[in-house]
């Protein structure tokens, strides 16, 4: 026995020395062996926030540095003398690390020792290392798959002993493709065409057709608008309407035109800094004007401007780098090597834009609807031809600028309310539209810089007021000389003095002559009340300067009429980015603990060190920063982007935490596939999103059936390894669009101002009327539903759309009774059910079974199983009986006109209503 033990012991000894030899040959990988332990066990106390005992594991530099004891915790090459190892092994519980926790397994401690002995080499977190350009598609044993994606997928499936599902049936693929690529189901004719297409490349042909569809851009804009936090209102208390839908249309157009993602990026972040930017490139910059602004009286604009700038920084990092920066506003990142100061260095790129949380949302791009644009262009040319040489407009300027120049050059000097800059808190632009009126209160004022007063004789005002008051025109300061003043008396009989938009009849033009003044001056308008009380003083539409001998008066009536006509064409406006001139630029400081009132060190523009540096030859400004993001050396942009598109098709990203590629995010399920796709996207597809999507949907992985055995589902419940096709609940937009499309109600118009479908909880606030859109426009796609931040459209929120106050990468899918109530009872869905029922009964030749089957086909594109058909029939029969009985019981009474429909119709409506609620209908299979 003893002998045996000795032999055995000897064997163990040999074995263990063999093991040691083996492991010493295989060097320790920091990312595989050490980092996970540090992240889980150490960094909460020894990281970017807490540096207990002066030790931090955030960077190698910090980890090797001396601690509070004066000695470093790690001595590279010498585990024996490294305090870290002593502490991991310490017998005293108060000394042993991790504190108040189980000791690390011996095996782990041995790895730490080996790692230190090997020099304590550090590695960047995987996401900060650029993907390798020459990743090979793995060889796999099975003959399965259509492209590279499938080989990566199959390789993993083999490891986990899973087998792919068969290809989904054609009808399933048809519906999946339509919903995925354009967000609406096919029409019956389109479905028939595909289902009967026996050509081997029928599927690919369909893919190409859908990628070329004008609805493609709408579907993908839905995804992007969550990231852009797009909304039709400004947020905060008043949550006034914001005209920014042209940005939404820009996104649709960009996706439709397959604008390369690098260009897509640069135009949105810095289109205004491109040479001679086009209108479209300026509208693209509205991406970062989707930040909230606060119009509540008495708020400090700088506070909310700062909040918007911080949001731009966080959003930029989240959208393009998949890194969350919420922490770094207040302190260094606790887990990733990004430092507090670096947040503000990056913020400096955004800190010098002109916008400043003011009511009028300046800077704005003004442009015109197509017809108006032609008219303006013609008028400007006609008038410009007749102006003297020294007063001609700049032909290179954008249309609205040319119009403004022309009016000014002809001495037509009217300043509309929406273009007034307010410098005082209690002046408010009045909704809706905010294009006409200012609400002005006592002792408020506005100011215009550098107004040329030479030759100005008089100034007139268009006002409306229920009270009485006075406007004083002051020179160069509020206390400066009074150039003129007008008294404003009540301008008519007011039914409701508090009404925010006066009737046209209440508007009066008032004029004051002014003291003769030479040259450029700051002009102040001071608004004072008389004895009356009340909050509102008056509304102001415009101010006009009248010159002694305005050029326009030297022209004939025709010229002047055309001038008036030109002035009266209202432009559309979109908030855009604009950079302050260098002499007015702001200085960026670190905000101590994230508090904008406590300024720390001054900083200047830079990207965080861990994320590399600006590429050669780009300017160190917002434009250069954008180019840095889409530079092919940037480790994150392509990965983060392909991951987003993957998630939209497969339900989860390859990195599930799409918003966090940092060390606290999830590791990628298929790291090589992610990198391969990222490299393909940049190098092979030249950032083409359509090519990327085509690769994904052409894969066998995508085309699998989504059904699987319970055992298989239990083995991989979230379908991480994709041994079956995706099954995902439709998005709020897809659910709406599908119901409208299947019922034939969908209005497919693309673009334009947002719509307000009926809702029973209409807001009754003065500021934000929900004016239900009438007619066919009511049935436009979900993407166009007016997005009010403080009161979002109910069914959107119920089906998990984010509120869009901030950038959101992932919609969290829930399953709630409110969703059931919405689909069962919301009038939008019921109207769709009525229309669907009508379509089901359209073919009079059909018997009931055929009608029921037709309804199912309109949504699912195949016949229902016999069992399901029987259930639908049961529903129809019982409902029919019920409605016939109701009819009989009420037949003695006078039948109202509403009751004239046959009982069959009501029964079929109930069936249609049920169809729109089926699990297979609200899911993509």
């Amino acid at each position: 026995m003893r002998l045996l033990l000795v032999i055995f012991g000897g064997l163990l000894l040999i074995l263990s020395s063999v093991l040691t030899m083996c492991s010493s040959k295989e060097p320790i990988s920091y990312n595989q062996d050490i980092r996970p332990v540090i992240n889980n066990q150490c960094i909460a106390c020894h990281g970017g926030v807490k540096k207990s005992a002066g030790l931090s594991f955030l960077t190698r530099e910090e980890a090797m540095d001396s601690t509070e004891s004066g000695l470093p915790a790690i001595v590279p090459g010498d585990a024996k003398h490294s305090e870290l190892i002593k502490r991991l092994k310490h017998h005293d519980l108060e000394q042993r690390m991790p504190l108040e926790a189980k000791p690390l397994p011996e095996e782990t401690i041995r790895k730490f020792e080996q790692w230190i002995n090997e020099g304590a080499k550090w590695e960047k977190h995987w996401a900060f290392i650029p993907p390798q350009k020459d990743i090979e598609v793995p060889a796999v044993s099975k003959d399965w798959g259509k492209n590279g994606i499938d080989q990566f997928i199959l390789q993993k499936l083999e490891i986990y002993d899973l087998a792919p599902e068969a290809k989904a049936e054609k009808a399933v693929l048809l519906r999946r493709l339509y919903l995925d690529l354009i967000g609406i189901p096919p029409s019956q004719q389109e479905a028939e065409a595909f289902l009967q297409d026996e050509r081997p490349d029928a599927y690919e042909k369909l893919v190409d057709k859908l990628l070329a569809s004008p609805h493609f851009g709408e579907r993908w804009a839905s995804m992007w608008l969550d990231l852009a936090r797009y909304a039709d209102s400004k947020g905060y208390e008043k949550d006034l309407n914001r005209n920014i839908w042209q940005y939404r249309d820009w996104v649709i157009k960009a996706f439709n035109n397959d604008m390369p993602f690098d260009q897509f990026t640069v135009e949105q972040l810095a289109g205004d800094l491109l040479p001679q930017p086009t209108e479209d490139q300026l509208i693209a910059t509205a991406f970062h004007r989707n930040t909230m602004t606060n119009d509540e009286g008495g708020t400090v604009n700088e506070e909310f401007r700062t909040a918007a700038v911080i949001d731009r920084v966080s959003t930029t990092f989240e959208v393009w780098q998949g890194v969350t920066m919420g922490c770094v506003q207040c302190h260094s990142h606790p887990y990733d090597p990004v430092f507090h100061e670096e947040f503000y260095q990056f913020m400096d790129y955004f800190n010098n834009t002109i916008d400043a949380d003011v009511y009028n949302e300046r800077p704005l791009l003004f442009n015109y609807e197509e017809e108006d644009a032609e008219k303006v262009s013609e008028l400007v040319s006609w008038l410009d031809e007749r102006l003297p040489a020294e007063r001609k407009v700049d032909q290179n300027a954008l249309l609205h600028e040319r119009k403004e120049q022309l009016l000014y050059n002809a001495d037509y000097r009217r300043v509309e309310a929406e273009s007034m800059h307010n410098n005082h808190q209690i002046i408010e632009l009045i909704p809706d539209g905010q294009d006409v009126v200012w609400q002005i209160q006592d002792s408020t004022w506005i100011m215009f810089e550098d107004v040329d007063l030479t030759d100005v004789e008089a100034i007139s005002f268009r006002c409306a007021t229920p009270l009485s008051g006075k406007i004083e025109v002051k020179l160069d300061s509020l206390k400066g000389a009074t150039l003129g003043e007008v008294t404003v008396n009540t301008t008519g009989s007011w039914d409701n003095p508090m009404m925010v938009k006066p009737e046209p009849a209440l508007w009066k033009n008032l004029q004051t002559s002014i003291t003769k003044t030479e040259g450029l001056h700051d002009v102040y308008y001071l608004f004072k009340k008389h004895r009356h009380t009340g909050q509102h003083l008056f509304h102001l539409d415009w101010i006009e300067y009248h010159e002694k001998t305005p050029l326009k008066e030297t022209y004939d009536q025709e010229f002047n009429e055309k001038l008036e006509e030109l002035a009266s064409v209202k432009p559309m406006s979109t908030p855009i980015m604009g950079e302050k001139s260098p002499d007015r630029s702001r200085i960026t400081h670190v905000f101590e603990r994230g508090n904008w009132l406590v300024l720390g060190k001054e900083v200047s523009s830079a990207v965080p060190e861990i994320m590399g540096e600006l590429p050669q030859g780009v300017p160190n400004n917002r434009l250069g920063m954008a180019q840095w993001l889409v530079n092919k050396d940037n480790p994150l942009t392509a990965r983060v982007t392909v991951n987003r598109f993957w998630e939209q098709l497969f339900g989860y990203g390859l990195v599930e935490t799409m918003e966090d590629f940092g060390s606290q995010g999830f590791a990628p399920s298929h790291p090589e596939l992610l990198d391969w796709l990222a490299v393909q996207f940049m190098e092979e597809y030249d950032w083409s999103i359509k090519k990327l999507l085509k690769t994904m949907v052409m894969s066998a992985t995508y085309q699998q059936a989504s059904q699987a055995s319970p055992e298989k589902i239990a083995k991989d419940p979230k379908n991480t390894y994709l041994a079956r096709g995706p099954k995902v609940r439709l998005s709020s937009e897809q659910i709406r669009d599908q119901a409208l499309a299947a019922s034939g109600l969908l209005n497919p118009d693309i673009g334009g101002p947002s719509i307000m479908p009926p809702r029973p909880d209409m807001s009754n606030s003065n500021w934000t009327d929900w004016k239900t859109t009438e007619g066919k426009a009511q049935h436009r796609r979900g993407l166009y539903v007016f997005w009010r931040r403080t009161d979002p459209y109910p069914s959107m929120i119920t089906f998990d759309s984010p509120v869009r106050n901030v950038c959101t990468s992932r919609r969290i899918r829930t399953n709630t009774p409110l969703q059931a109530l919405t689909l069962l009872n919301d009038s939008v869905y019921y109207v769709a059910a009525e229309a669907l029922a009508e379509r089901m009964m359209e073919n009079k030749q059909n018997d009931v079974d055929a009608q029921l089957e037709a309804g199912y086909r309109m949504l699912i594109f195949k016949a229902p199983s016999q069992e399901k058909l029987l259930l639908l029939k049961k529903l129809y029969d019982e409902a029919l009986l019920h409605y016939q009985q109701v009819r009989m019981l009420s037949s003695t009474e006078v039948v109202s006109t509403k009751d004239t429909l046959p009982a069959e119709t009501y029964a079929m409506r109930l069936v249609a209503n049920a169809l729109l609620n089926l699990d297979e209908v609200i899911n993509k299979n």
Partner: protein
Amino acid sequence: MDFLSQAQLEIARYNTRRHFLKKCMSGLGAVALGSFIGCNPTVDGGNQLLAHNPLAPLNPHFSPKAKRVIFLHMAGAPSQLELFDYKPELQKLNGKSCPPSLLEGKRYPFLGESPMMMGPQASFKQYGASGTYVSEFLPHFASMVDDVTILKALHTDEFNHAPAQLLMHTGSPRLGRPSMGSWAVYGLGSENQNLPGFVVLLSGAENISAGKSAWGSGFLPTVYQGVQCRSKGDPVLYLSNPGKIDSKMRKLSIDIINDINEKEYQESGDPEILSRISQYELAFRMQTAVPEVMDINDEPQWVHEMYGTEPGRRSFANNCLLARRLLEQGVRFVQLFHRGWDHHGTGKGNGVDDGLKSMCQSVDQATTALVNDLKQRGLLEDTLVVWGGEFGRTPMMEARSGANYKGRDHHGDAFSMWLAGGGMKQGLSYGETDEIGFYGTKDRMHVHDLQATILHQLGMDHEKLTYTFQGREFRLTDVAGKVVKDILA
């Protein structure tokens, strides 16, 4: 096989939502069924299917004193100086100019450069065994001072309505954070599966400044948002059946929907379908349960007299009675908003004299009735009642429309609220302000402290009730807040 009970069973197996959500934000639907395993992707993670009901009741962190909360928010901010914080010294300063030093470095939306001090516009008397001073404007409240704790030195960081209301309810002045009720339901679930766990009732002028965000779920899943029960139309959106569908047909169609979904489950094996089946059942039960609880016609006459309720009206009194009915049914968090307390003195009826008095008349009887009613029913001991506005008002007069109108501007440095039931001390006044009620001098309490204390009474540690979003753990009290043990019984 009964799929509903199968679903219920699977729900019961799984109730570690807080833990689960903290680790894995990946959603509650299709996702949640399997994502307990998916959080740490392993293929051999086991074959248990984990159905998941996000509103299933959960155990608190420790034994709670309160099971329910009703928060009566007087939106617009009532003046503490006319209601609770009696300042005879201020009367002596009435009409004198305010020393500029007092206003240095402070921000007020409307106060001019040199405002005058203004004495209390209501008279005060002592009431109850506690001898608490109460305003003549609140005669009913005066009768129950021995049941409540008045907080007199609360303070907030915000001086505008919307941000201050958001701070009060979400812990942050910015949009985007979950509200207190959402946190409570996220942390504790709901006792009644036929009603929403967090209900909001509105009365007074229009909606409140902060809008729906004051009861939004922020970054928490939308299932935790407050459900607004409306006095007109459907009490909950889309509760009533459209067209010619009556309750019998609705039941029939839901049965068929569920039967077809059951077939679909058999074909596809997707366990999320089981969850959908139970949600449709619940929707149907809500269609009955919600209108029932919202219909106050069945209350006896004496109850209507006690509250001053009139069925069918949109009123604060009706909402108080509804709140009691909801609490009785196990609703976790009821939030009332009553707007109209912003007494700037912009004109007649908008002063802290006339205007405030009439607002008090619209709430005093019903509020008192609510507390007494809860007490009689034995519910007060585990129901926490909270009453107050988003900030206080200045001891200075805001003479925007002349000195005839007694207005006060917004003031965040000192204001009063009161609490009753739910393990609070009784007959206590906590916190003191200086002689003019401008600043707290003793036992100041920040809004975050109030929130920490409310969560504490619900049995939750405000530092542990967290949710990971945008890479960091968020909580109701942001990075601050302490439980004020001095006011706990």
